[in-house]
């Protein structure tokens, strides 16, 4: 398994070109093209702001609420799109797996990385709002660490589900609902500190909780109060990755026959 991981390094050019292809192909043919990467998060922001600032106002003790929401939605979108897309990536790329010899894990990697690039495209907008609200803190320097944490965790989850869905196509259907549940169990639309300790105790088992709090703290509040949890999470992320990869590796030989 370790050797496979090292082998993967040799394929970084392939991963890189596939990510570029993915990004190029996604908006080719649309009028606004590349700008959709900015427009999509903006529209999302508008919808959530409308709902939680005007339809259901004053629920949460956080100001400005739209900014809080946006800080959570960007990384959450990265995570959930990656998981959803990778759950059928091996099946939709069946032709490749059956006809060309290359390590299949390249495919979920490409999904996660191209969604990460989309996440990066959303960041300038986020920063523009942060500057507008005067919320630039020195803790920003820890942002890359949180991103890395999420990357490793997301890769692990995606490797696991992409492998599993080859054998159990039901996974794709379950995932759509699971992700909805996961969304509401993560502090995206509500602040972590607002919820009662009883429930918080349960939410602490959710790795995305800590990742999202990490984003909120480094970007919005400028505090590092959550760092012990993030340390735990960094170990958990690596473990998730290794477990996901081992699972993927174990089933590797079956893909060409099953997809």
């Amino acid at each position: 398994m370790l050797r496979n991981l090292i082998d993967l390094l040799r394929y970084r050019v392939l991963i890189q070109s596939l990510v570029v292809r993915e990004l190029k192909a996604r908006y080719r043919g649309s009028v606004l093209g590349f700008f959709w990467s900015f427009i999509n998060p903006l529209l999302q922001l508008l919808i959530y702001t409308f709902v939680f600032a005007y339809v259901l106002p004053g629920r949460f003790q956080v100001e400005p609420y739209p900014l809080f929401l946006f800080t959570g939605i960007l990384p959450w979108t990265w995570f959930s799109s990656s998981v959803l897309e990778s759950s059928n990536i091996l099946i939709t790329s069946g032709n490749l797996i059956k006809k060309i010899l290359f390590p299949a894990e390249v495919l979920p990697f490409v999904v996660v990385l191209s969604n990460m690039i989309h996440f990066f495209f959303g960041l300038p907008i986020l920063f523009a709002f942060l500057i507008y609200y005067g919320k630039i803190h020195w803790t920003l320097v820890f942002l890359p660490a949180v991103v890395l944490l999420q990357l490793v965790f997301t890769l692990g989850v995606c490797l696991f589900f992409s492998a599993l869905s080859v054998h159990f196509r039901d996974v794709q259907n379950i995932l759509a609902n699971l992700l909805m549940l996961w969304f509401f169990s993560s502090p995206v639309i509500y602040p972590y500190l607002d919820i009662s300790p009883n429930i918080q105790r349960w939410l602490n088992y959710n790795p995305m909780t800590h990742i999202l709090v990490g984003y909120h703290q480094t970007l919005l509040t400028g505090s590092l109060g959550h760092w012990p949890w993030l340390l735990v999470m960094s170990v958990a992320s690596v473990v998730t990755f290794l477990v996901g990869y081992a699972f993927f590796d174990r089933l590797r030989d079956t893909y060409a026959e099953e997809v």
Partner: protein
Amino acid sequence: MAIAVRVSDVTKVYQRYAHRKQFRTLKSALLKGNLIGELRPDETFSALSGVTFNVWEGSTFAVIGRNGSGKSSLLKVLAGITKPTSGTVEVSGRISALIELGAGFHPEITGRENVFINGIMLGLSKREITDRFDEIVEFAELAEFIDAPVKNYSSGMYMRLGFAVAIHVNPDVLLIDEVLAVGDQAFVHKCLDKISEFRRRGKTILLVTHSLGLVEKLADEAIWLDEGKIQARGDPKKVVDAYLAQVTSREEEALAVAEEQAVAEFETPPPASEPVEDEQSLSKREKGRWGSREVEIVEAALLGSDGQPRHVFDTGEPVSVRLKIKTSGTLKDFAFGIGIFNADGVCCYGTNTDIEQFVPLSLSGEGEVRLVLDRLDLVEGTYFLDVAVHQRDGYPFDYHRALHAFRVNSRVKDLGIYRPAHRWEFSPNISMKPPRDE
């Protein structure tokens, strides 16, 4: 000489999911904690069993066999795309598999971008692709369209680009799976030239194809796979002959069964009157049998030179048509006729004893009629035999239409219906190399 590909006792077992006995769920798999074990159903299917062979470095090796014989499975195992269930495959040097051309092309991006990505997938570095890019585009004859999205390509353009990239990977061992059926004649020739160039440069080629002519022309050695086992190996010509012999015997069987069914279907009851022969039914040439049965054709058969009934012949072979007939009375007015029709319903030849001015004198009891053809000079194809006994004015005693089918095979894929015995002659200033097998 070194061995480039060493295949030892390779067996590949696939799972036959359609007949899975045990319903498998995510829950049961997770509960037993044994996903892999649970994934093995009882019903299996061996695509390859105990396949062993070596391919010498620099040689061209062909694999032939009918559909489903395990050829493609073998190639996938060789390419490393699937693992053999047991046995080992060793390949020395870089291997490239042309299993499907243009697999991995993304329709939305341009030909140029696809060349790079496809090249990288096939194991080239970016630099190598940049160096070979112009050559690839030139080979694919796509200079004008290389910056258009691949979805706008015709299927021929798509294949050409796929082949161009794959061939420029410049592997030590090249696996080719029936991909030479792409493109127009000119491009196929170009591909063949490229393959010849490969051979000259001492590269190893492993070819899977249905084109037996190509096997005889290109291969140094061949194997014939059937039901996952090697049936014959060695000299390509011998292997092809062995394969063709089996194809013939299968055709023979199939035609014999079809004839038996056709004859049985129209055995009884004899229709009261001749069916209406409108133009349509004539052109469709439906199977049929009619007549008064005052004289009955008990059996109609084509005999080979050994006098045994057969259904498959080589073009130019001597053939006799044998009719066994039976009558209860004694007749003074009768004629025997035969007709040979091709699959399109075109009459290739028809004659009867009346046309040829035989005068009937008497017929009684059981008898046998033979029409002896010294040469069956028909081109390759499936033909139908009509046989009849009738009065000279056409009143039918027994008429079999298209009940008896036979097949003519030929090494030469010439055109038309009739193949007159012929030869070519050239004046001394025209130099031609005669075909290999004649």
